[in-house]
């Protein structure tokens, strides 16, 4: 239904995303996807997470593993005192044609099979792509006023946040001139990702480097120690995955082709309110 509404567009075409933003968006899509998937392969080398400076092997807060049961081998996820049977997906899955003990399955990792050395090569290459792209984006956003003009919500928008939340829950999307601007929830989501999750994932990643730990003695303790940093890196990555899921859902709800086109060519067909009479 929502798709039907959004699909009704006026003739007005609006240049919504400028070239640098489009290019940097797609570089981000490629690098974040590969970082996530190579990261899961790296995680698989020791599929447990801890809090603190080192690994408290007896008490990880999250473990993915496999074990023998009377009914045969089974995969499990243990988290917060609970355990779930995740056979087939987590802990135990088909890899290279046979059932193997593996944290995340082949289809979620780069490379597919367990290969820590190669996954690290992918991860650190695309970490540079991602960081350089991110620095370019921040500089561009400041210099072009993209940050102030498009990303920061206005006082009036912040006051109307209740309406925006209601509209989102009803899958009601802005039309006309309102569709030309990011809405306030969108603003807040982007700001949390750009200035919260992304810096956190980068710094927590850097905190895992023994050489970078030597930059200032003890800076890793600001994140709770190296194993906490590894956990935070994982949680921030999960947060980014969650953001991406909502982002893609909203793209589908708001109209896949129109949204895709605007991020490829820049041009967006402004949707009109289906309840309003359109001038013929």
């Amino acid at each position, binding site marked *: 239904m929502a798709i039907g509404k959004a699909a009704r567009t006026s003739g007005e075409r609006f240049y919504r995303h400028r070239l640098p933003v489009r290019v940097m968006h797609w570089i981000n899509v490629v690098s974040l996807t590969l970082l996530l998937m190579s990261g899961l392969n790296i995680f698989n080398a020791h599929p447990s997470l801890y809090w603190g400076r080192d690994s408290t092997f007896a008490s990880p807060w999250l473990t993915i593993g496999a074990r023998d049961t009377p009914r045969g081998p089974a995969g499990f996820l243990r988290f917060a005192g609970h355990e779930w049977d995740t056979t087939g997906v987590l802990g135990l899955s088909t890899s290279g044609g046979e059932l193997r003990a593996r944290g995340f399955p082949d289809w979620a990792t780069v490379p597919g099979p367990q290969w820590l050395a190669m996954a690290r*090569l992918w991860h*650190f290459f695309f970490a540079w792509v991602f960081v350089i792209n991110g620095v370019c984006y921040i500089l561009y956003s400041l210099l072009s006023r993209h940050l102030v003009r498009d990303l920061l919500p206005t006082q009036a928008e912040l006051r109307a946040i209740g309406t925006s939340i209601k509209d989102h829950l009803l899958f009601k999307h802005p039309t006309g001139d309102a569709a030309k601007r990011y809405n306030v929830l969108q603003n807040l989501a982007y700001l949390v990702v750009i200035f919260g999750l992304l810096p956190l994932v980068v710094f927590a990643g850097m905190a895992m*480097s023994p*050489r*970078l730990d030597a*930059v200032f003695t003890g800076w890793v303790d600001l994140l709770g120690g190296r194993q906490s940093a590894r956990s935070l890196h994982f949680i921030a990555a999960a947060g980014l995955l969650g953001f991406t899921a909502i982002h893609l859902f909203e793209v589908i709800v708001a109209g896949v082709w129109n949204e895709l086109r605007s991020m490829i060519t820049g041009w967006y067909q402004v949707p009109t309110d289906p309840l309003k009479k359109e001038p013929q």
Partner: protein
Amino acid sequence: MNAKRPIRLMRRHQRERRGLLRGTVAAAGAAMLAGCDRLSHNEAFVETLKSAQQLSSAANKLVAPRAAMAQEFSRADIAPAFRSNGTLMPMDDAYHRLRQDGFADYQLQVRGLVEKPAAYTLAQLRDMPSRTQITRHDCVEGWSCIGQWKGVPLAPLLDAAKPLANAKFVVLRCFDSMTTPKGEADDTSYYESIDFDDAFHAQTILAYELNDKPLPVSNGAPLRLRVERLLGYKQAKYLRAIELVESFADIRGGNGGYWEDEGYTWYAGI
């Protein structure tokens, strides 16, 4: 009836488009996975991925210069049991003979591109000025363990040997064969290499004690390297000799270490 038809048509159109989208996404995903796996076996592509390591090591050394110290911890931070990994008990006869006598006949060789090659017994090493440090061991797999190491700093040993001007790397030769030896020519003993920045670093020691006790066999008895700003695979155990070289290109796989020959990067600071 007539009024409804356009809506139904539109819905079918949408269903087709959604189906097309789902199919496209699934096919693109499968193609991407297959593509990544193929690229992982493509030499030129892997070389491109590896180029980022140069950038990483240069950037790391820029922000954490040569003398920057690894974090040291308090006794309260020491892990109840220090995890062992890799070789836990060398299978080699030469090692077993030494171990049976409590390493009384053990000698560490210092050789290669030096003016004064030398050999030190364990007793001689224990008589030298020592350094004790509580540091965190970071395995490439992702886990960490904090332990207290006591040992002889590597720098004075290297100074005493007087490295030649062309010496650039310190190669650590170990006792433990990584596969069952098939003959003389089949050398699979563990080895590693570090550059002079790390070799002469204040926290780089040849450790003979872990947590106030002689180094256990599973942690590398009688002597192991501690090079605190690098990952675990650089912390060579069961040390047999220290060899100064200009290049490690003609040693074994040519990548500077056992795990490096298996595809891990020589720079182990990240």
